[in-house]
């Protein structure tokens, strides 16, 4: 809502308040003033001029030499190229020395040999937006229609000395979508009285009911409809004051009748519609639901197809307007219109909203109906418009209104106790202060021992319960005056849940390992959704996605992490280490199952210390090490296992399935080289696991283990085995065979090549034996170690490397 200071001044005395000060007070009162705009965009030296003569330039077809009286001793010569310039006009003249928007300075000039002492201005040159300029002046200079005096300041006449407050209205404050509502609000905020228009009408003997036979089929759809008839109207341009008001509110002036309906819409918040009575098509005005498939061509010359969800005004046979949304083209007021049927109605807001949404038509009118208008102002608004049409367009207003439904509704009672107000706000506001606030709001009330019963006027439909009154009192009392206290309820311990604590540890562990956290989108494309997942599961798809790229919920975190890798690689950032923890979404019941995953992507160099000639590229074991470290952190290192696996998007020889106990919880591996090529990534390793499974695994409490009291014995053994044999298998066999006294097995060398038979490799383990009860005897160690050697020989044919 745009509020002109000059216009508002008509209703409330704003003296002593600058626009900025007022804006601040209104904002503090609860309606946010988003901007304060000066209409004068840096103009000075523009006056009214009277064109005394206007002749064609001898050397230029399109230029005119004008002699213009600008209120100085001598008229000045100005060269003007506008097509609509003519002798006798009153125009806006930027004198020599004047400044126009954009710091454009007017100087003496010579145009094709003729001197020009100034410039005759168009409205655009004065900083008025093109979309607000009347059609007649759109391509030329502006011409005053009023009686004006040469030499006077043109800005005043064009309202360019005004300042505009832009209100950001929350949906509950539709009451401030009109100047009268704003006047009530500003009156309350400033604690000043307001002066509202009271239209006085001269009506003829002829009655509107002779011209209109009205029938509203369903009063729930349309609780009130009133038609006023005005004859002998002359359609013309509006006077400058009316033009100025509309322009200040951001509405383009069209002609006097249309401008008046718009003006009253802005002033009263009441949408009105003026039909050309002679083009209406009948005396009948029937308001009913449209039939399915019924058509109407609206004012914007577009054919619309309606349904029974839509309310229409008809002439008995066909729709002439979509109620509250837009009129029809057939009955539009035109230049030759003489008789007007002026509609002022109260339509069901839900129906207007539905039609506006279905037809994709949002108008100033529908916006107000949707948010709710003041029922008690409908008739007043139609009288105000009739009065203005009478004054400005010379119409005669017929007696009475052809109407159906009650004109007004009762105020609604809402009660509140002063003690309750103070209890909720934490304040000590007195009864007198509360009463004063209701008076500022112009609410009538009764006060019985601190309980106020307020008669809430229909202009404030947002106030329905006592809490709404607490807000009214609070906002006008001022939240600055509410103290800052600490809650006095019983104290509660604030702490993270076990899961939340563990999640924080996961982040710290991964970051300690060198990975950077990312946050990526949950919505993805169909192809990315199935990139790493089972193609057969159903998609969880948005009903109306904004794009295919963001149309389905992801089932895996990796596709977006790979996008992050690509993004960075394209910027020469090639050493990558990222992780993310986030939910993936799996089809389930009504709501999907949301499972928190952990995924990572690493590529490029892992270690780099150049001047010491150290460089270590990422490999499978870097990623595996990260997960193993995490398993240690959560006490499941014995239970987390890796098994060779085959995944379509991963390297067949470098991929492992990750199991916790016996449950598959994810994968680690290198991207398949073809995928790397497709994504233009270098060797890249990834992992993704079900984090919930890891964090929810039951583990024993941390318990201290006694420090060793006896020496342990270490034996190294190098075993020659087939190269295809996995070290992990050998380790498991050693572990089993070694028994309780074998406490640590470390693989310290893997060798293949010289001195070894083709197809063989050597695995060197360091085995540590320990007995917590006493010092190990050589005998004990030998027994255990022999079991190990026998076992590996029997199982794998492993020979000791000599």
């Amino acid at each position, binding site marked *: 809502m745009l509020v002109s200071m000059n216009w508002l001044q008509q209703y409330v005395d704003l003296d002593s308040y600058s626009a900025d000060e007022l804006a601040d007070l209104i*904002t503090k009162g609860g309606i946010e003033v988003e901007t304060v705009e000066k209409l004068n965009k840096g103009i000075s030296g523009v006056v009214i001029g009277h064109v005394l003569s206007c002749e064609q330039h001898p050397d230029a077809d399109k230029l005119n030499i004008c002699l213009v009286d600008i209120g100085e001793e001598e008229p000045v010569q100005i060269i003007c190229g506008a097509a609509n310039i003519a002798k006798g006009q009153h125009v806006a003249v930027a004198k020599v020395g004047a400044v126009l928007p954009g710091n454009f300075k007017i100087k003496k000039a010579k145009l094709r040999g003729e001197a020009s002492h100034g410039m005759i201005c168009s409205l655009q040159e004065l900083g008025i937006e093109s979309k607000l300029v009347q059609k007649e002046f759109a391509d030329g200079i502006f011409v005053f229609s009023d009686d004006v005096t040469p030499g006077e300041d043109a800005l005043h006449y064009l309202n360019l000395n005004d300042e505009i407050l832009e209100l950001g209205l929350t949906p509950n404050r539709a009451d401030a979508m009109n100047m009268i509502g704003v006047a009530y609000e500003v009156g309350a905020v400033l604690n000043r009285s307001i002066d509202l228009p009271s239209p006085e009408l001269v009506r003829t003997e002829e009655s509107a009911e002779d011209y209109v036979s009205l029938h509203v089929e369903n009063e729930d759809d349309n609780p009130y409809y009133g038609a006023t008839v005005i004859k002998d109207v002359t359609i013309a341009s509006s006077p400058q004051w009316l033009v100025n008001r509309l322009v200040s509110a951001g509405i383009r002036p069209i002609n006097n009748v249309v401008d008046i309906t718009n003006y009253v819409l802005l002033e009263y918040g009441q949408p009105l519609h003026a039909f050309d009575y002679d083009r209406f098509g009948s005396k009948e005005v029937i308001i009913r639901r449209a039939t399915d498939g019924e058509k109407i061509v609206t004012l914007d010359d577009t054919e619309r197809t309606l349904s029974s969800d839509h309310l229409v005004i008809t002439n008995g046979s066909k729709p002439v307007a979509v109620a509250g949304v837009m009129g029809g083209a057939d009955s539009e007021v035109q230049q030759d219109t003489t008789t007007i049927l002026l509609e002022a109605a109260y339509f069901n807001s839900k129906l207007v909203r539905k039609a506006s949404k279905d037809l994709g038509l949002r108008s100033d009118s529908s916006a107000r109906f949707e948010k709710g208008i003041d029922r008690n102002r409908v008739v007043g608004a139609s009288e105000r418009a009739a009065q203005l049409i009478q004054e400005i367009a010379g119409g005669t207003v017929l007696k009475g209104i052809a109407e159906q439904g009650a004109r007004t509704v009762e105020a609604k009672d809402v009660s509140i106790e002063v003690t309750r107000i103070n*209890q909720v706000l934490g304040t000590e506001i007195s009864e007198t202060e509360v009463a004063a606030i209701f008076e500022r709001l112009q609410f009538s009330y009764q006060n019985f021992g601190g309980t106020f019963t307020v008669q809430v006027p229909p202009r404030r439909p947002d106030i329905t319960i006592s*809490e709404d009154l*607490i*807000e009214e009192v609070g906002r006008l009392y001022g939240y600055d005056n509410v103290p800052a*206290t600490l809650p006095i309820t019983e104290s509660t311990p*604030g702490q993270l849940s076990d899961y939340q604590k563990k999640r924080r540890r996961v*982040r710290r562990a991964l970051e300690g390992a060198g990975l950077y956290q990312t946050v990526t989108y949950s919505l993805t494309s169909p192809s990315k959704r199935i990139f790493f997942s089972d193609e057969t599961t159903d998609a969880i798809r948005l009903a109306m996605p*904004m794009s295919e790229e963001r149309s389905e919920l992801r089932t895996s975190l990796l596709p977006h992490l790979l996008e992050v890798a690509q993004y960075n690689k394209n910027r020469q950032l090639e050493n990558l280490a990222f992780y993310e923890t986030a939910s993936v979404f799996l089809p389930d019941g009504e709501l999907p199952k949301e499972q928190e995953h952990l995924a990572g992507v690493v590529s490029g160099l892992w270690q780099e210390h150049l001047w010491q000639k150290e460089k270590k590229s990422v490999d499978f074991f870097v990623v595996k090490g990260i997960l193993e470290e995490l398993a240690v952190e959560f006490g499941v290192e014995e239970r987390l296992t890796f098994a060779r696996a085959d995944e379509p998007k991963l390297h067949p020889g470098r991929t492992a399935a990750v199991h916790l106990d016996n449950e598959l919880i994810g994968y680690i591996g290198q991207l398949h080289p073809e995928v790397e090529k497709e994504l233009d990534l270098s060797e890249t390793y990834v992992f993704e696991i079900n984090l919930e499974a890891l964090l929810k695994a039951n583990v024993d409490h941390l318990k201290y283990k006694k420090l060793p009291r006896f020496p342990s014995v270490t034996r190294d053994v190098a075993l020659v085995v087939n190269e295809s044999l996995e070290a992990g298998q050998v380790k498991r066999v050693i572990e089993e065979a070694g028994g309780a006294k074998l406490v640590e097995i470390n693989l310290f060398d893997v060798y293949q090549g010289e001195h070894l038979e083709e197809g063989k490799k050597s695995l060197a383990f360091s085995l540590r034996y320990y007995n917590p009860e006493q010092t190990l005897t050589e005998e004990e160690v030998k027994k255990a170690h022999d079991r190990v050697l026998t076992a590996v020989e029997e199982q794998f044919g492993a020979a000791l490397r000599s």
Partner: protein
Amino acid sequence: MQERLQTLKEEALLQIEKASSMKEVQDIRVAYLGKKGPITEISKGMGKLSAEERPKMGQLVNEIRTAISDQLEEKANGLEKAAVEERLKKETIDISLPGRPIKRGNHHPLTRVIEEIEDLFLGMGFSIAEGPEVETDYYNFEALNLPKDHPARDMQDSFYITEETLLRTHTSPMQARTMEKLNGEGPVKIIVPGKVYRRDTDDATHSHQFMQIEGLMVGENVRMSDLKGVLQSFAKKMFGDEREIRLRPSFFPFTEPSVEMDISCFNCGGNGCSVCKGTGWIEILGGGMVHPNVLRMSGFDPEKVTGFAFGMGPERIAMLKYGIDDIRHFYTNDSRFIKQFNTL
């Protein structure tokens, strides 16, 4: 004899001075002071002297021994010191060479801000509730006093999956979910961080996915002044002790009265600058007193308890706090962006 001793002394001192290694020093010691050395010889021959001369001579011999021995020791010390110095010189490194980097990642800036806020409210006795990102229409809207045809639903155009399920548009659904479980028994003190979604085209200031932290406190005698107090300590801890807050009336369907909170501009201190668009104040969050309908629908009696709720955007807070100019940075994950958040 006396002369001989003096000569020996001079000879010895001269040789000591010339010595350049520990071995030479050792040789000199043996040569002069050893058991077969000349001075020992002289001592042995002192028996031939008279009783008067003997003590005098003895004293002289001792003096010369001491003089040589002291000189030897001094020389040895000097040589040792020089040797150490030589070694240290050889071992000297260029300390300006770069140190070995420690591999370490860091939090995403949004996590950093969220954890900071979580810790702050944990300290005030709140706990952290989390809920589903795909919600029912009921919890996302209806239980928050936004019935199906409420005009305020326009304010948050949403991503529906079915007629009844959608991506949550705020983390407020956890208000109802948490309260329902408590069967009307307070107090409730939670904050709810999480991802939310709205139908916005991504640009410098909009993102279809973003974070929100909702706060809720319900109990007997919870007042708006408490909301102000809690938010004040939040603002001071988050943005500095000098920050002032102000509450402005606003509107949310699930609170009544509703407020928006501004903090005094940390950039200009309130005089007006580009960060605060000249107003001296920066809008940080919205909140208010829990609407009685919300309490009632979740099984609490608005006659007995009151509550406050608030909601804030970690992106906005991070953008303000760190001067980040484009919300898309949070979701692009440029490593040069993320790595900046590794310091205090």
